């Protein structure tokens, strides 16, 4: 597909392309891509119904008329099972749509299914999903990244042009990098969290994954903006992201973050990212070395705050009102204990335990409060850096996609996969991962971060890189 989703939607609206045909094509591709194990639920009937409704009155359809997409299975979809890739919610059917789902549907996008994720978005490899690991289209023995691994794999495999994701510590950007696509995490508060199953409320942000900056811009335009149902959603006006695509990077000062090229980063990945940065330099950007020393503390702070919030957010899964319930409980304690022991996977339990511990009386100051202090210092560090530069850059992930099973027995090694992404969440800033070439045949992502609400600047830089490279046009073997 060489045209962007807005242009395709325009053809749907003028009747030259039928939404139903786009839906059928996506369903067929989904079928062909089953080996990726990336879809939790395929909603063929729902997709056909939605497409037919658009075809019945195409001229009235919105900016994304007929565009097929998948939602990460963390977004509530009315009447359509929403599992968070957890046994806990294997049969849960929400009675309402998430704001993101509602807005994309209102724009005319057609949901063909729900994408797999790390259970409750906790993971960096999509291996903790209760439906099993998702495979990377570039190499089926490798992970697609996580937690929005299903979304990334389905976009990379060409099943859909665009997918939603969520990013708490890198869960949109890292899988986008591993799968060779573009993934945008907006500013905290830019997109409503209403209906998005919470992992860590102060860090969670909905984002989009697509094969181009333009498609990300169109999708973001549909979902961004204030929502009275989310008190952390921000009321400031939404920029014209599509217009921003043409802004380029001429004169932009890009800070190359020393800490993002640290010890844990594969030198081949680092070198490839520098190649991409040179392309931006050729497009008129100025590269400046910057240091943000507090970023070294981002991982520990993140792995205190995120589990703390998760331990509380996941307390509602108690077997009383919905979701999994242990059979024949002897008493209340037994109901809770077995429901949660059976319903949650190992990584979720690990984080609940960790989070419960750091909030406990006697440990709160040493861990949670201290982590919040670090978080403020990191935000200050970013603010200082952005006084001098327009964008910050580095590799999205320290490595290319690793093998399925390679890190499952070593949680700390797995957590290190987020080393370059979590700081941005702690500061609430927007960031994007853009295709930046390949190492050993696997995609590399360039991460760009911007000041709050400067999503347009990120998209402009991503579009500028696309003009000077063809990495984003590469397709995995078997999914062309």
């Amino acid at each position, binding site marked *: 597909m060489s045209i962007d989703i807005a242009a395709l939607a325009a053809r749907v609206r003028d009747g030259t392309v039928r939404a139903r045909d786009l839906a059928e094509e996506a369903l067929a591709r989904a079928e062909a891509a089953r080996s990726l194990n990336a879809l939790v639920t395929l909603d063929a009937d729902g997709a056909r119904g939605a497409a037919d409704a658009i075809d019945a009155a195409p001229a009235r359809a919105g900016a994304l008329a007929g565009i097929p997409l998948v939602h990460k299975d963390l*977004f*509530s979809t009315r009447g359509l099972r*929403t599992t*968070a890739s957890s046994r806990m*919610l294997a049969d*849960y059917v*929400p*009675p*309402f749509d*998430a704001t993101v789902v509602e807005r994309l549907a209102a724009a005319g996008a057609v949901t063909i299914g729900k994408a797999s994720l790390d259970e409750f978005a906790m993971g960096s490899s999509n291996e903790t999903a209760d439906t099993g690991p998702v495979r990377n289209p570039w190499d089926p023995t490798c992970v697609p990244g996580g937690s929005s691994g299903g979304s990334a794999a389905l976009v990379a495999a060409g099943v859909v042009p665009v997918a939603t994701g969520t990013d708490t510590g890198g869960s949109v950007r890292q899988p986008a990098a591993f799968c060779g696509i573009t993934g945008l995490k907006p500013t905290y508060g830019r997109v409503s*969290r*209403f*209906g*998005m*199953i*919470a992992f*860590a*409320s*102060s860090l969670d942000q909905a984002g989009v994954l697509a094969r181009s900056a333009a498609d990300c811009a169109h999708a973001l335009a549909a979902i961004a903006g204030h929502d*009275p*149902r*989310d*008190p*952390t959603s921000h009321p400031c006006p939404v920029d014209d992201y599509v217009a921003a695509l043409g802004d380029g990077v001429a004169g932009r000062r890009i800070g190359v973050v020393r800490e993002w090229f640290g010890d844990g980063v594969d030198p081949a990945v680092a070198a490839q990212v520098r190649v991409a940065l040179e392309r931006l330099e050729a497009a008129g950007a100025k590269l400046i070395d910057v240091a943000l020393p507090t970023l070294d503390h981002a991982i520990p702070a993140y792995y205190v705050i995120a589990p*703390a*919030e998760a*331990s*509380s957010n*996941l*307390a*509602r899964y*108690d077997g*009383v*009102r*919905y979701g999994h319930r242990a059979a024949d409980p002897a008493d*209340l304690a037994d109901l*809770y204990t077995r429901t949660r022991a059976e319903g949650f996977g190992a990584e979720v339990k690990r984080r609940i335990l960790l989070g*419960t511990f750091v*909030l*406990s*009386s006697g440990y*709160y100051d040493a861990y*949670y409060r201290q982590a919040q202090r670090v978080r403020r210092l990191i935000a200050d560090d970013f603010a200082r850096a952005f006084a001098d530069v327009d964008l910050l850059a580095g590799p999205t992930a320290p490595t290319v996609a690793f093998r399925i099973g390679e890190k499952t027995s070593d949680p700390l090694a797995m957590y290190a996969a987020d080393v370059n992404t979590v700081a941005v969440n702690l500061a609430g800033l927007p960031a994007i991962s853009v295709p930046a070439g390949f190492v050993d045949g696997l995609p590399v992502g360039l991460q760009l971060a911007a000041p709050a609400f400067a999503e347009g600047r990120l998209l402009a830089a991503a579009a500028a890189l696309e003009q000077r490279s063809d990495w984003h046009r590469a397709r995995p073997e078997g999914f062309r």
Partner: protein
Amino acid sequence: MSAWQAVIGLELHVQLATRRKLFSGAATAYGAEPNAQVGLVDAALPGTLPVPNAEAVRMAVRFGLAVGGRVARRSEFARKNYFYPDLPKGYQISQYEHPIVAGGEVRARLDDGRDVRVALVRAHLEEDAGKSLHDAFHGATAIDLNRAGTPLIEVVTTPCLHSAAEAAAAMRAIHRLVTWLGICDGNLQEGSFRCDANVSVRPGPDAPLGTRCEIKNLNSFRFVEKAVEYEIERQIRELEAGRPIRQETRLYDETRHQTRALRGKEEAHDYRYFPDPDLPPLVLAEAEIDAIAAALPELPDARRDRYQRELGLSDYDADLVTADRSTSEYFEATLAALGGPEPKRAKTVANWIAGELAAALNAAQRPIAESPVGPEALAGLIREIEAGRISQKVGKDVFAAIWAGEGDAATIIAARGLSVIRDDAALAAQVDAILAANPKPVAQYRAGDTRVLGWFVGQVMRATRGQADPATLDRLLRERLG
């Protein structure tokens, strides 16, 4: 034996009289079908988010201003984490390190007229839990989430109270204030106003504080008094027997008038409070607080003092007509209908409110706001008595007739022919008849026993069904007996 001093602090759970819940937009009416008032947020469906109710926030600010507390320009919601089936999220949204109101004070009056200053630690916003119904189904506990998410303020007093009577008086004073402010319906039976009491005793006012016990869920003034009284005695008994007090949570048994242990300190929850990441800090603009302050009504203590100062009401009467907002408004409206606040009339009106009106309302189980004898009607009746058209005694019958819906005082007096007999000739005939029929007391009077005069007054009053003008009657009797 040493003189034990009891030390008591209260925590009051005041349900705010908002139409909607604190975070969900669902209705809050009491008594609906179980689980009929449950929003997505109240049921804690995944992905739902709390949206604060501005009305509840304004009510908390009203309270803070009324008690002279510090209203925080920036307060913070926190999560109190614990598992219970009627707590759907697995945490309660409350306030912890940064409550909306800090400090403040309420004046409580004891039965003996003594005032106690009740210093407050804080008042914070929080949501109520649902209800577990243990008896509704055999072998199962049912959950009703109608109450889940109902806004509360929890008012915490300092441990400044030293007797059961003081504890009950403090609870009453805060109850009066929150109903006066219109932020709580004050209904104790329905649980709109609940009290936990922390009680300890020590060998004297200078001794360090003793180990405290918390008595949970007291829902009447009497129970608070009884429970605290029992608990003080129990702790003294234990200590005097050489047994230390265990820090524990206790429940009050209403039928036995005893407290019993519910759980000890070691079973206490670690609530793992932390700032709620779903809710930004609650920021109040100066102008918003000023507007709420400007709209505050005259508060009960100020009004009571004013009545004593300006209207010369006694302690007792002033208390009585400021017992609650609607009584006070009734009093004010009656005075206004009579042409304004004037000391003598104020006393008369207070007497009517405390006497006939209170008795009738009590017998009919009606609130004063729904009295069939409204302030205008009572003022009309008082005018008739003041003008001498009827006696005080006949006035009571007229009151009953107004209550029964027979019209206003003037109409009833005319219709029933109740006007005072002031006519000398008419009254003289009655007097002469009574004197003629009772030669013995007449002789007694003439022999110097003037006490029988009152007896003759009574006889004539009876004969005239109370319509005799007392002054005229007195003159006629003295003339004839003298």
